[in-house]
């Protein structure tokens, strides 16, 4: 795997962590919780090397 591709996977993992952390910390808005998970879908699928 080329270096640039590894770097992009690291960026994806970092964004996934940020969104998951925001999901854990959110206490008030259900809409925000749903949005965090929605945005997580393509990131998780890429990290799992599915799509």
């Amino acid at each position, binding site marked *: 795997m080329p270096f640039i591709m590894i770097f992009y996977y690291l960026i994806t993992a970092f964004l996934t962590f940020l969104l998951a952390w925001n999901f854990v910390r959110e206490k008030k808005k259900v809409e925000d919780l749903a949005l965090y998970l929605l945005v997580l879908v393509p990131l*998780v699928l890429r990290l799992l090397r599915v799509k």
Partner: protein
Amino acid sequence: MKRPGIVKALLLVVFLAFIIHGGLRLYRHRHFDVPVVAGPGVTRVGRLSDFGPGLKGTMADTPVYYLEGAEPGGKAVLLSCTHANEPEGWLAALLMIENAVVERGTLIIIPQFNHSASRNTRSGDGYPLYFEIPTEWGQKTFRMGNRDASPLDQWPDPDVYIHYPERQLLSYIDVRNVNRTWPGRPNGPRMEKVTFAAMEIMRREKIDVAIDIHGAETMFPVTNCIVAPEKANRIATMAALTVKAREGFDSHVEPSPTGFRGLSHREIGDYSDTLPFLLEAPIPFLDQPTGPKTVKLLLDGKDPFLLRLAQKKKLFVSYDESGWPLEKRVGQHCSLTLEILSQYSKKNPERSIRVREIPRYAEVVQNGVGHYFHDPSAAPKDKVYMN
């Protein structure tokens, strides 16, 4: 928000259900193999990585079938699945692998040239993941691929793809389109490595003729045609005229543009001694103004919206209630391939290529494509290759 823990747990269950349900379907599609029964003409099977570095062990590596005749002669390469969402080329190539016998010369077939794209899909456009062809021994299932390689195999895309070596600026997504990355380079992005390996086949094997099989929208002007550069134009014209006169179907000749780089019909000719040809058959499934992208539309090419557009003369091919079925598209590719080889052989008798057992247009239309596929469960195991 009351009871945030319960709400989060419920949302997570929905999230995981989406990931598992959708993800498993996509994972299975990417790893679904199509069995191919090597016919009596296949003398050996190699890999594209035999010719280029950086492909071995990746999803970009792909099988290469050799059909070598008893008599020495010329050599031809047939590429399909350059765009894996144009399956008539793939089916024509598989039909030849399973049936063709070469008497003189060599035919090299790479049925899934963009192997990564053949394991990719365009879920945003509602593409089906699979399609089935009826055969005399049951349904044969094929993967439906995408135009471009999967980002799982080549990522990220650049903002602009700078073609090598001409440095023409192309769309970012063309970096994963193997009909924009010719002639390629050994140390470029993976799709450039794919085309570089194919160029190495042309150069090392001294290939005379290369045929790249495609499908194109009915609303796209470069459809139902043979695209050829100046040096292959005469043979393309003779082939188009002959099939029109003898077999009754149209396929006009389009000149390969000199200012548009990266295409097989341009770069193969410019960077090797090979004569390149690109075949296009109309595939209504790819047109934008159609109904849902169903397997039925893929196979029969019938669409009411295209029919209305045809009545308003907005299409570049004739189109009526009969649509543009798969049999016609595959049959055209078979006949045009045979005719190009025949015309080349007439012009170069010392490098002639003689092939038999490939059906012509009328036979494929009459018998259907599935008629020519063999049952892998009834074939000897050493003849079955998983693609």
